[in-house]
Each structure stands twice: as C-alpha cells, then as structure tokens.
C-alpha cells in the first residue's frame, strides 16, 4: 500500500480507515511517520530508550485523537504537535528539570561567536545523528528551551508559560544551551580534524 501523503484525498482515506480501527492502515501511518517523529522525540530526551517511550505514548494518542484531526492543516504537523506535547509532558515530570537563572552580565558573555568558513562547512558535513546526540546531551532545562525556541518556533513568552518559568530565564537558558551546543560541535570537529582514520 503506497500512500502519497501530499494527496489530501489519500490521506483522508487512510485517516478514516485508522479511525475505524483498521490495523493495516494504522500500520501504514505508523511506518510512514516513524522516522521523522523519532527525530522529534530524540531531541527532547537523553537516549533512544526514552525517545521510544515518548514515541510509543505519542502514537497511542495519535490513534486515539485521530477522529479530532479534521484535516485542517497537514497530518504530519498535527502528529508532530502531539509528539511535542507528549515530550513536554514528559520533561515537565522530570525531577531534574531546574532552570538556572543568570544575570544580564553573564548573558553578555554569551554573545554569538562567529565561525570560520571551514568550520561551517564541517558542521554541514557532520552526520545529523551526531548533532542529535549532542542536543540530547544538553542538560534537561537547556534542551527543553532550545528545542521549543529553535524547532517549535515558540517565543520566549510562550516557552515561559509552557514551562512555568519567567521570560528572562527562558532567554538565558536558550543562550547557554546554544553556547554549550556550539562548544560540543566545535570540539568534536577539532578532534576529528586531528584524528587520522
């Protein structure tokens, strides 16, 4: 069964069959979005086991709520929002989610550092799995803010509301997360430069 997910008629057919509980269509839908949604879940978690837990819970919700989808907007976007919400619920429950606040002075130190041209090229050539791995290794608080701001396009005000912190904390955590991630990526690139394989 091949489905063109750009074709709204085909999507409607699959969705309707899934709502009726058709196992084959559910399988097709699951397999089609597995890879992309695993990336979403990986970004919010520490390892693949956690990511798969969220993916599991997310898909359970997807199949439960599919009747409310209503074909407004893309199915992928809708599934993705469910995954993100599941991930946020998950990180909210974590006991180690504490947001360090910092002063304005510290934030000035976080000013965007620039890259050399060859470094930029090397980031582009990096395996994406590695970048995801580095995002996973941000502290839970940094990771949450970074993900919501960069990938979910939320404003600091929205993030603050979502995570129950103040806007300043969201901003400073984002700056620190970015700087931390940059540091990891750069040191990785440097290590590889020196290594001979």
């Amino acid at each position: 069964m091949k489905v063109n997910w750009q074709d709204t008629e085909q999507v409607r057919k699959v969705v309707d069959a899934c709502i009726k509980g058709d196992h084959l269509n559910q399988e097709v839908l699951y397999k089609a979005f597995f890879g992309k949604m695993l990336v979403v879940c990986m970004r919010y978690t520490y390892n693949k086991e956690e990511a798969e837990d969220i993916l599991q819970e997310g898909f359970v919700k997807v199949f439960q709520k599919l009747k409310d989808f209503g074909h407004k907007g893309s199915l992928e976007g809708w599934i993705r929002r469910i995954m993100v919400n599941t991930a946020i619920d998950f990180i909210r429950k974590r006991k180690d989610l504490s947001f360090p606040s910092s002063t304005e002075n510290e934030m000035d130190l976080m000013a965007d550092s620039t890259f050399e041209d060859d470094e930029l090229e090397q980031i582009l050539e990096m395996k994406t799995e590695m970048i995801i791995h580095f995002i996973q290794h941000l502290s839970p608080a940094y990771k949450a803010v970074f993900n919501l701001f960069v990938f979910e396009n939320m404003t600091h005000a929205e993030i603050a509301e979502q995570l129950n912190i103040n806007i300043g904390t969201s901003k400073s955590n984002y700056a620190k997360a970015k700087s931390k991630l940059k540091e990891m990526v750069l040191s990785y690139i440097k290590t590889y430069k020196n290594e001979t394989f």
Partner: protein
Amino acid sequence: MKRFEDIIKEKVENFEYPYEQGAWENYNRRRRTQKIKKWGLASTVIIGIITTVVLILTKPEKAVMPFHSKQNNVIITTNNSIPLNTQVNEIKTNKDKQTQTTINHQENNQSTIKQESPQTVTNNITDLSTTMSENNAQNTSTLNTASFTKNSSQGCAPLEVQFTAITTGKNCQYLWNFGDGTTANEKNPIHLYKKGGKYNVYLTVQWNEKDKYTTDVQTIQVYNKPTALFDYSLENNTVRFESRTKQAISHKWLIEDTIVNGSYWKFDITHSGKYMVQYIVENADGCSDTSIKDINVSYKMPVQFANAFSPDNDGINDFFGPQVIDYSYYQFTMNIFNKTGKCVFYTKGSPALWDGNDKETKQSCPAGIYIYKIIAVDKKGNKNEFSGQIKLLR
C-alpha cells in the same frame, strides 16, 4: 551568513531515521501490556492515595530529609593538538533542589515510606565552561566520557546489533562486554545475540593514562523466536495441515498463491506431485518463524464407474464408460476384454463410451462379465489407471 542554530535546525529537520524492522510489532506488543497493567496500577494508586493521606495526617514531618549534592564534570577546551581533558571540579551547591517522596506498597496493605535521594542540579559558569548534568546517575560530557549508539535496542533472536562508539580520541582503548559472556576490542563491533533475554552492554573506554577510564551501559532486549512445526495427512484429495507450534498467536499457511490463517488448514489438491508449503507462525513478542516443506501427494481423479449396463437403446444405461462431471477435462484410453481375454472394444478420446458391440465385427456382445482397463489423463496432466469388471445385461 547563516546562524549556527539555523544550520542545526535545517540539518535535523531534514533528517529521518530509517524505519526499524519490527517497530510496529513492538508498538502493539507494548500497547497490549500497557492495557493489562492499567488496572493493576489504578488499584495501587487508590490504595496509595489512602495510605498517603493517613500517613500525612499522622506524621507530616517525615517527608523532609537531607539531600546530597553531586559532582559535575566540566569540559575545558585546551588547544588543537590535545583533544580534550577531563577535570572534576567541586561545585558549590545552589538553591535549586527538589525533594521527593515515594510510597511503596506491599500486598498486605502495609506501607512504608522510602526516601529517594533528592537530586540536586547545580549549574556554575566558569569562564567559557558550563556544566551539564543528567538524571541518569552519570554526568555526561560528550567526548571524554564513554558513550555509544546501537542500530537497534530490541528485536527477535537471532539479533545482529551494530554498536558504534561515539567516544573518539587518540590512543583510546575500547572494551565491549555484550552481556552474554562475550567481549570485543574493536571500536565499532557487530554482535549477534543468539538467544532471547535482556542484556546489559558495557563499553569501557580507557584514555591515554592507564588509570583513566569511563563506562557506558545500555540494554538490549532480545525476544525469543518461535519454531514453526506442522504435521499433514492426505485423505480424498484433501491435505489436512495441523500446527505443532505452541505459544503462537498467529498462523499463516501458504501454498501456491493461496494464503490462509488458523492453526489448521484443509487444502484440496488438484494434481499429483510436489507442493511447496510455507507455514509462518508469530508469537506474542512479534517474532516469527517460517517452515518450508515440499510435500509429495498423489491425486485421485473423481472418476466413477457403474458395475452393470444394458445396451438396448431404451435411453437408460445404454453405454458403459467413466462417469465424470466434465468430459472435456479428460482424455481416456479404454479397452474392454471378454472372459477369454480378447479385446472386444477400444477407444481413445473423450467421452469414452462402449455401446455393447464388438468393435471389429459390429455384432452385439453377449450378456456376461467383461473387464475394463482405462487410462485417464486430465488437463492438468494427471494420469490415473482404472480397471474393473462390468456386467453386460441383455
């Protein structure tokens, strides 16, 4: 120029993990177990709430306990030639701390209060370094801590897993313990798990200095595979297949282009010879096995014969010959012999009918017992031989 975060976003958004074999089966398997657990959990929660209320009313001060702080790794980047150094710094504990109380239940409804060591997350900024902490016991910095990825974390036996050490560096020594009694020293080994079970995989990376090493541990879940076994027997052109596999939740049978489900199957054969049977079983863990067997069967044509006939042109039983539903499906070679063994009638083709006359003399054969020998070939190429006695009545 593009910003750093834009490049990261672009790369990650355009990336997709490949579909993992068995992921859907695993989704359903876990969903089934979750449903079962729900009721058990619900009752535990209710008892939990009751006991908590009782305990809080009696001894509320017990919930506060002392906490301990953790040490965090700090990454310090030095220069280009030496990749990275590790330093463990003492870090001041700050005010962000959380205490948590869990309540455990035993079956006899007695409950005890357990204190989980409260985790304290500290963050400290020293020059360019920031601290990172994770809830999973070990603090992780990326390059100077043992860390690995694997291409699958669960699957059916035999399961081949590709491990990849993320840790890199000059003169790194890798020691893998796959949890099933085997080890390896390569950087990126491939390991085959033959039996079902839960395995803890350890990667220990030793750095330049002999006393410096760190370990990462991850779990691999391997599910047992069922063994596809079946018996069969043939009766009246029907083969009855019967499963001998226990603990299977799904059975599939396949012959030629017919597929059926169920633990047994009655299959009607249409010709003699070899049939290739595929039998596929799946167990509750979503693991499957296939048994392929060639079975040799002989096909018995549905051809019948009368034991007497009366060739008197009255329209009733005037001819003798093989009785079939569709004459055009067969080609017959028929010979009729009298008691002395002389052939009185022969014909080739279809339909094969004897009118009771001697083929050569065109005279009526006398009443009595005759012997027939018939070879039948059908459109599928099946060939059957029939012989017997026929009584000619006059």
